[in-house]
Protein backbone atom coordinates (compact mmCIF):
# COMPACT_ATOMS: atom_id res chain seq x y z
CA UNK A 1 0.00 0.00 0.00
CA UNK A 2 1.35 3.41 -0.92
CA UNK A 3 2.54 5.52 2.00
CA UNK A 4 3.27 8.58 -0.16
CA UNK A 5 1.50 10.43 -2.93
CA UNK A 6 2.99 12.58 -5.66
CA UNK A 7 0.47 15.26 -6.58
CA UNK A 8 0.08 18.70 -8.05
CA UNK A 9 -1.75 21.69 -6.62
CA UNK A 10 -3.88 24.42 -8.22
CA UNK A 11 -0.75 26.14 -9.55
CA UNK A 12 0.52 22.94 -11.14
CA UNK A 13 3.38 22.62 -8.63
CA UNK A 14 4.13 19.08 -7.64
CA UNK A 15 5.23 17.58 -4.32
CA UNK A 16 5.51 14.18 -2.72
CA UNK A 17 3.85 14.00 0.69
CA UNK A 18 2.95 11.29 3.18
CA UNK A 19 -0.27 9.31 3.12
CA UNK A 20 -1.56 7.94 6.40
CA UNK A 21 -4.44 5.60 7.03
CA UNK A 22 -7.26 6.85 9.24
CA UNK A 23 -9.00 4.41 11.53
CA UNK A 24 -12.45 4.56 13.08
CA UNK A 25 -12.83 4.52 16.84
CA UNK A 26 -12.32 0.84 17.73
CA UNK A 27 -15.43 -1.10 18.79
CA UNK A 28 -15.67 -2.99 22.10
CA UNK A 29 -13.93 -6.36 21.99
CA UNK A 30 -15.49 -9.67 22.88
CA UNK A 31 -13.99 -11.32 25.91
CA UNK A 32 -14.27 -12.45 29.53
CA UNK A 33 -13.65 -9.88 32.28
CA UNK A 34 -10.13 -10.20 33.65
CA UNK A 35 -9.18 -13.04 31.30
CA UNK A 36 -6.94 -13.06 28.26
CA UNK A 37 -8.47 -14.98 25.39
CA UNK A 38 -6.66 -16.16 22.31
CA UNK A 39 -8.29 -16.63 18.94
CA UNK A 40 -7.37 -19.95 17.36
CA UNK A 41 -8.12 -21.67 14.10
CA UNK A 42 -8.12 -25.45 14.38
CA UNK A 43 -8.81 -28.56 12.36
CA UNK A 44 -12.41 -29.67 12.91
CA UNK A 45 -12.55 -32.56 10.44
CA UNK A 46 -10.01 -34.77 8.70
CA UNK A 47 -10.16 -35.38 4.97
CA UNK A 48 -11.74 -38.76 5.73
CA UNK A 49 -14.43 -37.06 7.81
CA UNK A 50 -15.89 -34.69 5.22
CA UNK A 51 -19.42 -35.19 3.98
CA UNK A 52 -18.15 -36.24 0.55
CA UNK A 53 -15.72 -38.82 1.97
CA UNK A 54 -18.28 -40.30 4.37
CA UNK A 55 -20.92 -40.45 1.66
CA UNK A 56 -18.52 -42.27 -0.64
CA UNK A 57 -17.64 -44.79 2.08
CA UNK A 58 -21.06 -45.42 3.65
CA UNK A 59 -23.59 -44.25 1.06
CA UNK A 60 -26.18 -41.51 1.16
CA UNK A 61 -27.48 -42.16 4.69
CA UNK A 62 -24.57 -42.58 7.10
CA UNK A 63 -26.11 -41.15 10.30
CA UNK A 64 -26.10 -44.51 12.09
CA UNK A 65 -22.41 -45.07 11.31
CA UNK A 66 -21.62 -41.68 12.86
CA UNK A 67 -23.43 -42.72 16.05
CA UNK A 68 -21.98 -46.18 16.40
CA UNK A 69 -18.47 -45.91 15.04
CA UNK A 70 -17.40 -42.23 15.06
CA UNK A 71 -15.73 -42.65 11.66
CA UNK A 72 -15.50 -38.85 11.31
CA UNK A 73 -13.23 -38.51 14.34
CA UNK A 74 -9.52 -38.73 13.63
CA UNK A 75 -7.80 -38.14 16.96
CA UNK A 76 -4.44 -37.64 15.25
CA UNK A 77 -5.64 -34.58 13.38
CA UNK A 78 -8.76 -33.04 14.91
CA UNK A 79 -8.11 -30.16 17.27
CA UNK A 80 -4.67 -29.35 15.88
CA UNK A 81 -4.03 -25.64 15.66
CA UNK A 82 -3.79 -24.31 12.11
CA UNK A 83 -0.96 -21.82 11.88
CA UNK A 84 1.26 -21.46 8.84
CA UNK A 85 -0.38 -22.86 5.75
CA UNK A 86 0.38 -22.75 2.07
CA UNK A 87 -2.30 -22.19 -0.54
CA UNK A 88 -2.60 -25.02 -3.05
CA UNK A 89 -4.99 -25.49 -5.94
CA UNK A 90 -7.01 -28.61 -6.65
CA UNK A 91 -7.75 -29.45 -10.28
CA UNK A 92 -11.17 -30.24 -11.69
CA UNK A 93 -10.94 -33.76 -10.21
CA UNK A 94 -10.00 -32.50 -6.76
CA UNK A 95 -6.35 -33.51 -6.98
CA UNK A 96 -3.54 -31.27 -5.79
CA UNK A 97 -1.91 -29.42 -8.68
CA UNK A 98 1.87 -29.31 -8.82
CA UNK A 99 1.94 -26.59 -11.48
CA UNK A 100 0.40 -23.14 -11.27
CA UNK A 101 -3.16 -22.95 -12.60
CA UNK A 102 -4.09 -20.49 -15.30
CA UNK A 103 -6.06 -17.46 -14.15
CA UNK A 104 -9.03 -16.01 -16.00
CA UNK A 105 -11.00 -12.90 -15.25
CA UNK A 106 -14.79 -13.16 -15.21
CA UNK A 107 -16.68 -10.01 -15.99
CA UNK A 108 -20.04 -10.12 -14.23
CA UNK A 109 -22.90 -7.80 -15.18
CA UNK A 110 -24.68 -5.85 -12.46
CA UNK A 111 -27.63 -8.25 -12.78
CA UNK A 112 -25.34 -11.16 -11.87
CA UNK A 113 -25.05 -12.67 -15.35
CA UNK A 114 -21.64 -13.42 -16.88
CA UNK A 115 -20.57 -10.95 -19.54
CA UNK A 116 -17.23 -12.35 -20.65
CA UNK A 117 -14.10 -14.30 -19.71
CA UNK A 118 -10.73 -12.85 -20.55
CA UNK A 119 -7.07 -12.84 -19.67
CA UNK A 120 -6.61 -10.88 -16.44
CA UNK A 121 -5.61 -7.27 -16.92
CA UNK A 122 -2.69 -6.29 -14.73
CA UNK A 123 -2.84 -2.85 -13.17
CA UNK A 124 -0.03 -0.98 -11.49
CA UNK A 125 -0.02 1.48 -8.63
CA UNK A 126 -0.07 5.08 -9.86
CA UNK A 127 -0.18 7.44 -6.88
CA UNK A 128 3.54 7.74 -6.27
CA UNK A 129 5.15 7.57 -9.68
CA UNK A 130 7.10 10.03 -11.81
CA UNK A 131 3.83 11.33 -13.23
CA UNK A 132 2.01 13.14 -10.42
CA UNK A 133 -1.63 12.70 -9.53
CA UNK A 134 -3.24 15.76 -11.03
CA UNK A 135 -5.35 18.50 -9.51
CA UNK A 136 -8.24 18.45 -11.96
CA UNK A 137 -9.62 21.87 -11.11
CA UNK A 138 -13.09 20.35 -10.78
CA UNK A 139 -14.53 21.34 -7.45
CA UNK A 140 -17.68 19.63 -6.25
CA UNK A 141 -19.59 21.24 -3.40
CA UNK A 142 -19.60 19.18 -0.20
CA UNK A 143 -23.40 19.13 -0.15
CA UNK A 144 -23.44 17.61 -3.64
CA UNK A 145 -20.52 15.22 -3.11
CA UNK A 146 -22.06 13.48 -0.08
CA UNK A 147 -25.27 12.81 -2.03
CA UNK A 148 -23.45 11.56 -5.09
CA UNK A 149 -20.60 9.31 -3.97
CA UNK A 150 -20.04 6.61 -1.37
CA UNK A 151 -16.61 7.33 0.10
CA UNK A 152 -15.34 3.87 0.98
CA UNK A 153 -11.93 4.89 2.27
CA UNK A 154 -10.17 7.90 3.65
CA UNK A 155 -6.50 8.69 3.86
CA UNK A 156 -4.85 11.68 5.45
CA UNK A 157 -2.18 13.72 3.69
CA UNK A 158 0.66 14.73 6.02
CA UNK A 159 3.61 17.03 5.42
CA UNK A 160 7.16 15.76 5.67
CA UNK A 161 8.94 19.11 6.00
CA UNK A 162 8.27 22.83 6.33
CA UNK A 163 7.77 23.38 2.61
CA UNK A 164 5.24 20.60 2.28
CA UNK A 165 3.42 21.96 5.38
CA UNK A 166 2.82 25.24 3.52
CA UNK A 167 1.82 23.32 0.40
CA UNK A 168 -0.79 21.14 2.15
CA UNK A 169 -2.07 23.84 4.52
CA UNK A 170 -2.82 26.10 1.55
CA UNK A 171 -4.74 23.34 -0.25
CA UNK A 172 -6.75 22.57 2.91
CA UNK A 173 -7.58 26.23 3.47
CA UNK A 174 -8.66 26.80 -0.14
CA UNK A 175 -10.95 23.79 -0.14
CA UNK A 176 -12.43 24.74 3.23
CA UNK A 177 -13.15 28.24 1.96
CA UNK A 178 -14.83 26.84 -1.14
CA UNK A 179 -16.77 24.24 0.92
CA UNK A 180 -15.93 21.81 -1.83
CA UNK A 181 -13.92 18.71 -2.59
CA UNK A 182 -11.42 18.61 -5.46
CA UNK A 183 -11.27 15.73 -7.90
CA UNK A 184 -7.79 14.26 -8.39
CA UNK A 185 -6.92 12.06 -11.33
CA UNK A 186 -4.08 9.96 -12.67
CA UNK A 187 -2.42 9.86 -16.07
CA UNK A 188 -1.33 12.55 -18.51
CA UNK A 189 -4.78 14.12 -18.62
CA UNK A 190 -5.47 13.59 -14.94
CA UNK A 191 -8.71 11.76 -15.65
CA UNK A 192 -7.77 8.23 -14.57
CA UNK A 193 -8.60 6.54 -11.28
CA UNK A 194 -6.15 6.21 -8.39
CA UNK A 195 -4.60 2.79 -7.74
CA UNK A 196 -2.62 2.32 -4.53
CA UNK A 197 -1.09 -1.11 -5.13
CA UNK A 198 -0.52 -3.48 -8.02
CA UNK A 199 -3.79 -5.08 -9.13
CA UNK A 200 -5.47 -3.12 -6.36
CA UNK A 201 -8.89 -1.57 -6.44
CA UNK A 202 -9.27 1.61 -8.49
CA UNK A 203 -10.82 4.64 -6.85
CA UNK A 204 -11.88 8.14 -7.73
CA UNK A 205 -9.98 10.44 -5.39
CA UNK A 206 -11.19 13.72 -3.89
CA UNK A 207 -9.35 16.11 -1.59
CA UNK A 208 -11.19 17.64 1.35
CA UNK A 209 -9.61 20.23 3.61
CA UNK A 210 -10.18 21.77 7.03
CA UNK A 211 -8.10 24.18 9.09
CA UNK A 212 -8.02 25.23 12.73
CA UNK A 213 -5.54 28.01 13.43
CA UNK A 214 -2.25 26.73 12.05
CA UNK A 215 -3.39 23.10 12.06
CA UNK A 216 -4.98 21.37 9.13
CA UNK A 217 -6.68 18.18 8.05
CA UNK A 218 -6.30 17.31 4.38
CA UNK A 219 -8.14 14.12 3.56
CA UNK A 220 -8.06 12.04 0.41
CA UNK A 221 -11.58 10.62 0.06
CA UNK A 222 -11.76 7.51 -2.09
CA UNK A 223 -14.87 6.31 -3.85
CA UNK A 224 -15.51 3.37 -6.15
CA UNK A 225 -19.25 3.83 -6.29
CA UNK A 226 -21.84 6.48 -6.99
CA UNK A 227 -25.10 6.50 -5.05
CA UNK A 228 -27.33 4.96 -7.70
CA UNK A 229 -30.30 2.66 -7.80
CA UNK A 230 -29.02 -0.94 -7.98
CA UNK A 231 -29.64 -3.08 -11.02
CA UNK A 232 -32.22 -5.81 -10.45
CA UNK A 233 -30.85 -9.38 -10.47
CA UNK A 234 -31.49 -11.24 -13.76
CA UNK A 235 -35.08 -12.49 -13.89
CA UNK A 236 -36.35 -9.94 -11.37
CA UNK A 237 -37.66 -6.42 -11.68
CA UNK A 238 -36.25 -3.39 -9.85
CA UNK A 239 -38.22 -4.25 -6.73
CA UNK A 240 -36.76 -7.73 -6.68
CA UNK A 241 -40.10 -9.34 -7.53
Amino acid at each position, binding site marked *: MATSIHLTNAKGRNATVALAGVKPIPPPKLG*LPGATLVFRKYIAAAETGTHAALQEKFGQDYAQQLITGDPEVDLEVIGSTVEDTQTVYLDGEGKV*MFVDPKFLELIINADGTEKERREPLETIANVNTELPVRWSGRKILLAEAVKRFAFRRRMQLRHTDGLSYDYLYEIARDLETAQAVMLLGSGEKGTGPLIFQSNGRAYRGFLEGRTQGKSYQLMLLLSDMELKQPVAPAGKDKDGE
Partner: protein
Amino acid sequence: MAKTLLITKGSEELSFTLNRIDRSKIYGARKRIAVDGNGRVCTRAALTGDGRTLLLSGMTSQGYFTDTGRPVLRSEMVGIDALGQIVESNSSTLGIAQTIAEAVAPSELLSLALQSVFYLKPEQLASSLLDRLKAGEIFKVAFNYSAGFDAAFAYIVANDDGCFALVGKPMNVQWVEEGQQFVPLPDDSEEADDLDFDAM
Protein backbone atom coordinates in the same frame (compact mmCIF):
# COMPACT_ATOMS: atom_id res chain seq x y z
CA MET B 1 -41.76 -9.46 6.28
CA ALA B 2 -38.41 -7.67 6.29
CA LYS B 3 -37.91 -5.07 8.98
CA THR B 4 -37.77 -1.44 7.96
CA LEU B 5 -35.73 1.60 8.81
CA LEU B 6 -38.21 3.79 10.66
CA ILE B 7 -37.43 7.44 11.34
CA THR B 8 -39.49 9.97 13.21
CA LYS B 9 -39.52 13.69 13.90
CA GLY B 10 -42.32 15.13 16.03
CA SER B 11 -45.54 13.44 14.94
CA GLU B 12 -44.20 12.50 11.51
CA GLU B 13 -42.94 9.01 10.72
CA LEU B 14 -41.31 7.66 7.59
CA SER B 15 -40.31 4.07 6.96
CA PHE B 16 -38.04 2.59 4.32
CA THR B 17 -37.35 -0.91 3.09
CA LEU B 18 -33.61 -1.56 2.88
CA ASN B 19 -31.50 -3.11 0.15
CA ARG B 20 -27.78 -3.34 0.91
CA ILE B 21 -25.83 -2.28 -2.15
CA ASP B 22 -22.24 -2.38 -3.25
CA ARG B 23 -20.33 -1.64 -6.40
CA SER B 24 -21.19 -4.99 -8.00
CA LYS B 25 -24.94 -4.25 -7.88
CA ILE B 26 -24.48 -1.03 -9.84
CA TYR B 27 -21.59 -1.63 -12.24
CA GLY B 28 -21.05 -5.39 -12.09
CA ALA B 29 -17.85 -7.02 -10.92
CA ARG B 30 -14.59 -8.65 -11.95
CA LYS B 31 -13.63 -11.96 -10.46
CA ARG B 32 -10.48 -14.01 -10.96
CA ILE B 33 -10.81 -17.75 -11.23
CA ALA B 34 -8.14 -20.44 -11.55
CA VAL B 35 -8.52 -23.16 -14.20
CA ASP B 36 -6.53 -26.34 -14.76
CA GLY B 37 -4.95 -27.52 -18.02
CA ASN B 38 -8.31 -28.82 -19.23
CA GLY B 39 -10.09 -25.54 -18.54
CA ARG B 40 -11.88 -26.86 -15.45
CA VAL B 41 -12.31 -24.52 -12.50
CA CYS B 42 -9.82 -25.18 -9.69
CA THR B 43 -10.59 -24.92 -6.01
CA ARG B 44 -8.32 -23.49 -3.36
CA ALA B 45 -7.18 -25.48 -0.38
CA ALA B 46 -4.51 -25.10 2.28
CA LEU B 47 -1.62 -27.35 3.14
CA THR B 48 -0.46 -27.32 6.77
CA GLY B 49 3.07 -26.18 7.51
CA ASP B 50 4.28 -29.75 8.06
CA GLY B 51 2.83 -30.77 4.71
CA ARG B 52 0.85 -33.61 6.25
CA THR B 53 -2.71 -32.34 6.10
CA LEU B 54 -4.64 -30.91 3.20
CA LEU B 55 -7.35 -28.58 4.47
CA LEU B 56 -10.40 -28.46 2.26
CA SER B 57 -13.33 -26.10 2.64
CA GLY B 58 -15.26 -26.95 5.82
CA MET B 59 -12.42 -28.81 7.54
CA THR B 60 -11.43 -26.01 9.90
CA SER B 61 -13.16 -24.09 12.61
CA GLN B 62 -12.16 -21.23 14.85
CA GLY B 63 -12.91 -19.81 18.25
CA TYR B 64 -11.68 -18.19 21.43
CA PHE B 65 -9.76 -20.13 24.06
CA THR B 66 -8.52 -19.33 27.56
CA ASP B 67 -4.80 -19.51 28.31
CA THR B 68 -5.42 -23.00 29.73
CA GLY B 69 -6.89 -24.10 26.40
CA ARG B 70 -10.57 -24.15 27.36
CA PRO B 71 -12.84 -23.15 24.49
CA VAL B 72 -15.04 -20.17 25.36
CA LEU B 73 -18.58 -20.12 24.03
CA ARG B 74 -19.82 -17.01 22.29
CA SER B 75 -22.68 -16.82 24.78
CA GLU B 76 -20.18 -16.58 27.68
CA MET B 77 -18.43 -13.55 26.25
CA VAL B 78 -19.27 -9.93 26.90
CA GLY B 79 -18.29 -6.66 25.23
CA ILE B 80 -15.30 -4.94 26.80
CA ASP B 81 -14.32 -1.38 25.94
CA ALA B 82 -10.84 0.12 25.69
CA LEU B 83 -10.85 0.85 29.46
CA GLY B 84 -11.68 -2.76 30.31
CA GLN B 85 -15.28 -1.95 31.26
CA ILE B 86 -18.16 -4.23 30.29
CA VAL B 87 -20.50 -2.66 27.74
CA GLU B 88 -24.12 -3.53 27.13
CA SER B 89 -25.21 -5.04 23.85
CA ASN B 90 -27.18 -2.73 21.56
CA SER B 91 -30.34 -4.18 20.08
CA SER B 92 -31.18 -3.87 16.41
CA THR B 93 -32.71 -0.55 15.48
CA LEU B 94 -34.67 -1.97 12.55
CA GLY B 95 -38.41 -1.65 12.95
CA ILE B 96 -37.96 0.66 15.95
CA ALA B 97 -38.62 4.36 15.41
CA GLN B 98 -35.40 6.38 15.53
CA THR B 99 -35.71 10.07 16.21
CA ILE B 100 -33.75 12.19 13.78
CA ALA B 101 -31.66 15.02 15.11
CA GLU B 102 -31.52 18.37 13.38
CA ALA B 103 -30.20 18.34 9.82
CA VAL B 104 -26.55 17.35 9.63
CA ALA B 105 -23.75 19.31 7.92
CA PRO B 106 -22.23 17.54 4.89
CA SER B 107 -18.76 17.77 6.44
CA GLU B 108 -19.90 15.43 9.25
CA LEU B 109 -20.77 12.76 6.71
CA LEU B 110 -17.31 13.11 5.18
CA SER B 111 -15.82 12.09 8.54
CA LEU B 112 -17.66 8.79 8.51
CA ALA B 113 -15.83 5.45 8.36
CA LEU B 114 -18.29 3.93 5.90
CA GLN B 115 -19.27 0.33 6.64
CA SER B 116 -22.26 -0.25 4.38
CA VAL B 117 -24.64 1.48 1.99
CA PHE B 118 -28.35 0.78 1.68
CA TYR B 119 -30.73 1.76 -1.08
CA LEU B 120 -33.91 2.90 0.66
CA LYS B 121 -37.39 2.60 -0.75
CA PRO B 122 -39.87 4.86 1.08
CA GLU B 123 -43.07 3.12 2.12
CA GLN B 124 -44.98 6.42 2.18
CA LEU B 125 -45.03 8.40 -1.03
CA ALA B 126 -46.07 11.68 0.60
CA SER B 127 -44.19 12.81 3.66
CA SER B 128 -42.72 16.10 4.80
CA LEU B 129 -39.61 14.20 5.94
CA LEU B 130 -39.21 12.83 2.43
CA ASP B 131 -39.64 16.34 1.03
CA ARG B 132 -36.89 17.60 3.34
CA LEU B 133 -34.56 14.82 2.19
CA LYS B 134 -35.26 15.62 -1.46
CA ALA B 135 -34.56 19.28 -0.72
CA GLY B 136 -31.04 18.31 0.32
CA GLU B 137 -31.21 17.81 4.08
CA ILE B 138 -29.20 14.99 5.63
CA PHE B 139 -30.70 13.02 8.51
CA LYS B 140 -28.71 11.12 11.12
CA VAL B 141 -30.10 8.26 13.21
CA ALA B 142 -28.67 5.50 15.37
CA PHE B 143 -28.41 2.33 13.31
CA ASN B 144 -27.64 -1.26 14.20
CA TYR B 145 -28.63 -3.77 11.57
CA SER B 146 -28.40 -6.56 14.13
CA ALA B 147 -27.83 -6.67 17.88
CA GLY B 148 -24.21 -6.25 18.93
CA PHE B 149 -21.72 -4.27 20.97
CA ASP B 150 -20.83 -1.89 18.17
CA ALA B 151 -22.93 1.25 17.71
CA ALA B 152 -23.16 2.90 14.31
CA PHE B 153 -25.05 5.73 12.67
CA ALA B 154 -26.97 5.96 9.43
CA TYR B 155 -26.86 9.17 7.44
CA ILE B 156 -29.84 9.36 5.12
CA VAL B 157 -29.50 11.32 1.89
CA ALA B 158 -31.57 11.62 -1.28
CA ASN B 159 -30.66 12.33 -4.89
CA ASP B 160 -32.31 11.86 -8.29
CA ASP B 161 -31.82 8.09 -8.02
CA GLY B 162 -33.60 7.74 -4.69
CA CYS B 163 -32.80 7.61 -0.99
CA PHE B 164 -29.69 6.04 0.54
CA ALA B 165 -28.46 5.25 4.03
CA LEU B 166 -24.70 5.53 4.56
CA VAL B 167 -23.86 3.53 7.66
CA GLY B 168 -20.67 3.79 9.65
CA LYS B 169 -18.85 5.20 12.64
CA PRO B 170 -16.99 8.46 13.21
CA MET B 171 -13.32 8.62 12.22
CA ASN B 172 -10.56 9.54 14.58
CA VAL B 173 -8.84 12.21 12.46
CA GLN B 174 -5.94 14.13 13.97
CA TRP B 175 -5.18 17.77 13.37
CA VAL B 176 -1.75 18.23 11.86
CA GLU B 177 0.50 21.03 13.09
CA GLU B 178 3.56 22.47 11.42
CA GLY B 179 6.03 21.00 13.93
CA GLN B 180 4.65 17.47 13.56
CA GLN B 181 6.94 15.50 11.32
CA PHE B 182 5.29 12.46 9.87
CA VAL B 183 7.25 9.25 9.46
CA PRO B 184 5.18 6.72 7.53
CA LEU B 185 4.94 3.20 8.88
CA PRO B 186 6.23 0.47 6.56
CA ASP B 187 2.72 -0.76 5.88
CA ASP B 188 0.72 1.56 6.96
CA SER B 189 -11.29 19.24 -18.09
CA GLU B 190 -14.12 16.85 -18.34
CA GLU B 191 -17.62 17.67 -17.16
CA ALA B 192 -18.76 16.30 -13.82
CA ASP B 193 -21.14 13.81 -15.39
CA ASP B 194 -18.33 12.25 -17.42
CA LEU B 195 -16.83 10.68 -14.29
CA ASP B 196 -16.46 7.08 -15.34
CA PHE B 197 -17.03 4.74 -12.42
CA ASP B 198 -18.21 1.93 -14.67
CA ALA B 199 -14.86 1.22 -16.31
CA MET B 200 -12.79 1.16 -13.12
